[in-house]
């Protein structure tokens, strides 16, 4: 592995924004393909997600890592556009109505961007109608919904039901701390991801199964 990529992965893991920026610039300077740089970012972030899940680090550490990754991605985006790597799939993402907790949603959005999805981020507290409108407008193959509270899980269920009622041709994946595979099965969601790293795998599976 190229040294700057190793440094990049490490700087994401520790949330060191300046180092991440310098390492990204060095990698770009050395003509490393942008996809490889993205992979280095994602592998750092996947490690952050794993350590969070294992209770080794806490929310602020995840947030600074995410910010470091964002800094690098901002440098990469123009390169990706220039190299003609067009995202093949579009995902509409948001937290469900009544839920303002967006840390997990933001991580998933970033990981999906890193995996070359076009991400339409509707933000927080998004009513079902607004989700449906965006999915139709962007022809999104995938809809990703997040809820952190058990109080907002019914809103997630309603959003999924509404998408089904209207026969919108999109796959739905859900996540958030209280969400489980059983809940996804119960409400008729197509996929469930336990964390941001596995969200990418689930997203890829869902769009390729179409």
């Amino acid at each position: 592995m190229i040294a700057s990529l190793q440094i990049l992965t490490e700087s994401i893991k520790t949330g060191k924004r300046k180092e991440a920026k310098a390492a990204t610039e060095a990698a770009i300077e050395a003509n490393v393909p942008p996809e490889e740089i993205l992979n280095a970012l994602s592998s750092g972030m996947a490690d952050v997600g794993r350590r969070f899940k294992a209770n080794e680090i806490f929310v602020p550490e995840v947030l600074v890592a995410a910010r470091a990754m964002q800094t690098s991605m901002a440098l990469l985006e123009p390169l990706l556009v220039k190299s003609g790597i067009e995202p093949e799939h579009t995902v509409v993402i948001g937290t469900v109505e009544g839920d303002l907790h967006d840390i997990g949603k933001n991580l998933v959005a970033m990981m999906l961007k890193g995996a070359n999805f076009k991400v339409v981020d509707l933000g927080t507290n998004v009513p079902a109608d607004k989700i449906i409108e965006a999915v139709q407008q962007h022809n999104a193959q995938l809809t990703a919904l997040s809820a952190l509270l058990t109080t907002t899980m019914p809103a997630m269920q309603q959003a999924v039901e509404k998408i089904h009622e209207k026969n919108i041709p999109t796959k739905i994946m859900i996540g958030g701390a209280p969400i489980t595979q059983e809940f996804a099965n119960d409400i008729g969601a197509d996929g469930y991801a336990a964390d941001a790293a596995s969200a990418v795998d689930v997203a890829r599976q869902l769009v390729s199964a179409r």
Partner: protein
Amino acid sequence: MNSRPQNFGIIACDAFSDELSSIAAKKNVNKTNTDTPWSRLAWLEMGLHDHPESLRSEVQALIDAWNSDSSFSTILLAYGMCGNGLIGIKSRSKTLVLPRAHDCITILLGSLEAHETILKENPGTYFYSPGWIRGRRTPGPDRERHLRNFYAQRYPDDPDLVDDLVEADLMAFSHHNCAAYVDITNNQEAENYCRNCAAYLGWKFRKLQGNSRWLEQLLTGEWSKDKFLLVPPGHLIQRTTNETLIETIPCNEMR
């Protein structure tokens, strides 16, 4: 010989310690000739709901450990679903009883409807209660100080990173705009604490009148079906997708 009319053990979140202690001292609740209405009590650390799997395994471990204690046949769980950490909990030889609630805030507010209405009116409400305030986990100046010290020890060579981490924690609450204090113990000190946090964060302050009835009913055995779930031996707690929130199924029929 134990002369209690009804013997039970109780597993409770430490966030409830003020409320439970105050209720347990009431005459209508403690009908035993001892200081407390329970045969056995265990407090679990507050905040375990952040990692629902940890909450589940700690509660389950206590239930399993109490299985062989023949001095009581019922275990009360002073918990709501708490991030779904109570989902999947199995009874063994004892009956489990728990409120049909999202979390401690539902229980302190007295009804599911009250909790859901407040959140619907303003999803940016952050709830404070004496327990959470005692734990110094609520957003505000103490939390910031605590985090700064914690991260300064963890990352002693990187003060910039420590600043970033403290700022990131504040950012994590940036969508909230109201500190709502829920009280059933008339704790003026805790209320003032919450007011200060609201002022520090630039949030509105709101005082919500709590209701001790639900916790009292848990301890006195007035377990109406709409407010409590009874989990018979050999069953487990499962989530529903309607307003009952939780139900029980035999362990061998687990999905």
